[in-house]
């Protein structure tokens, strides 16, 4: 099992390119293409070494950068600034235009993020129960029989079930279930109970992703020496034991 280091992630090849331009504090209208290309390639290689998912889009960008780099090395393109004929077009132009267009929406996205933050601090209240405005002097339970009562109850129970299912569904659909989250959750449980059967960690309703991430978090905690595992006999359930640092010390003192 290998451990994946979380590297700064980029939303795509343009995002990475934009980041490099910002980091190097270079003018977007005058990108030192050789330097930026080298850094870009270096980053992609690191990603590959770390077995991160390098999507084809990143590789396409590498090709584009290398092509621009080679074109710029040709002395033929070193024309007068005023020259606008085909040969005189800066090979970087198309890329720069794409970057500028991308930057427009990236900036807008940042503004939306600010608005999201503000708005997340605003609350509304649920609708008031309104029957007390409509019941007035209605006769009791007009037109309702046992069947309606049973149906209402069954609907509540079904909704409850559905709600549980939906809840899990959303958990799966979330963008990321991070190992960090799973580690936190596992630590929270195990620091309380001190000892837990491996089997008990995996609730039946867990999604596949959640199971995998939970498993990874177990491995990570073993690696960090936060927990140890224990198995009495073959085929026995594996037991995870929390290594409470304070607890260890007390034991040492007592011993």
């Amino acid at each position, binding site marked *: 099992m290998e451990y994946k280091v979380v590297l700064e992630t980029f939303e795509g090849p343009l995002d990475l390119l934009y980041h490099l331009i910002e980091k190097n504090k270079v003018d977007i209208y005058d990108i030192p293409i050789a330097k930026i290309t080298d850094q870009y390639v270096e980053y992609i290689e690191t990603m590959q070494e770390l077995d991160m998912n390098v999507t084809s889009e990143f590789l396409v960008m590498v090709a584009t950068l290398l092509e621009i780099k080679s074109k710029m090395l040709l002395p033929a393109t070193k024309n007068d600034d005023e020259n606008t004929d085909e040969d005189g077009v800066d090979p970087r132009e198309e890329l720069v235009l794409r970057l500028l267009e991308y930057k427009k929406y990236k900036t807008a996205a940042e503004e939306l993020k600010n608005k999201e933050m503000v708005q997340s601090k605003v609350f509304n209240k649920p609708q008031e129960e309104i029957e007390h*405005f409509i019941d007035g002097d209605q006769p009791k339970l007009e037109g309702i029989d046992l069947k309606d009562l049973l149906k209402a109850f069954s609907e509540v129970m079904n909704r409850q079930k559905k709600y549980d299912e939906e809840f899990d569904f959303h958990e799966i659909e979330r963008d990321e279930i991070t190992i960090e989250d799973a580690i936190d959750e596992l630590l929270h449980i195990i620091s309380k109970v001190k000892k837990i059967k491996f089997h008990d960690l995996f609730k039946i309703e867990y999604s596949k992703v959640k199971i995998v991430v939970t498993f990874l978090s177990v491995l990570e905690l073993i690696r960090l020496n936060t927990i140890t595992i224990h198995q009495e006999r073959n085929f026995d359930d594996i037991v995870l034991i929390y290594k409470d640092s304070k607890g260890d010390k007390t034991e040492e003192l007592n011993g």
Partner: protein
Amino acid sequence: MDKREIKSIIEGLLFIWGEPLLASDITEVLDIKENEVHLILKEMMNDFNYNRRGLQIKQTNNSYQLTTRAEHFDWISKLCTPRNDKKLSNAALETLSIIAYKQPITRMEVEALRGVKCDRSINTLVQKELVKEVGRLDKTGRPILYGTTDDFLQYFGLTSLEQLPQLEDFTKLDEDGQLELEFD
């Protein structure tokens, strides 16, 4: 923090809380003295009336609650009514069914099942004498346990609660489109 700001915050707190909010809770949040809280709330109650606001603050012992005004009842009924039949609302029916099947049960438990506040619909049911307090739970706050009344049984023609149809019967209903109940 000036008084206007304090009033403003208290209004937000009452709004979000919905139910009667203890002055001591406001005291804790704002870190001001409790008698000051009472004084400010008295002022707010006057402000609300003076400005003919659409809401009012109701005091009950040491709690305060934001509510609509009684004189707006007709308008609010007009807003709510077209969306509902004149029958017992679904909310009340659901609440009644939960209490019937799960009694004795606290309001909190009913709310957990329905996923929304149920104080109003429980009040309605109590008023209609279909539901009543049958005891208290031996727990912090000693919450009220609700159960159904004799009127409830009578209305549905049941001799006892054991005669309530079970959920499995409902599955039968699904299949046959009809529910076979065994009365007597």
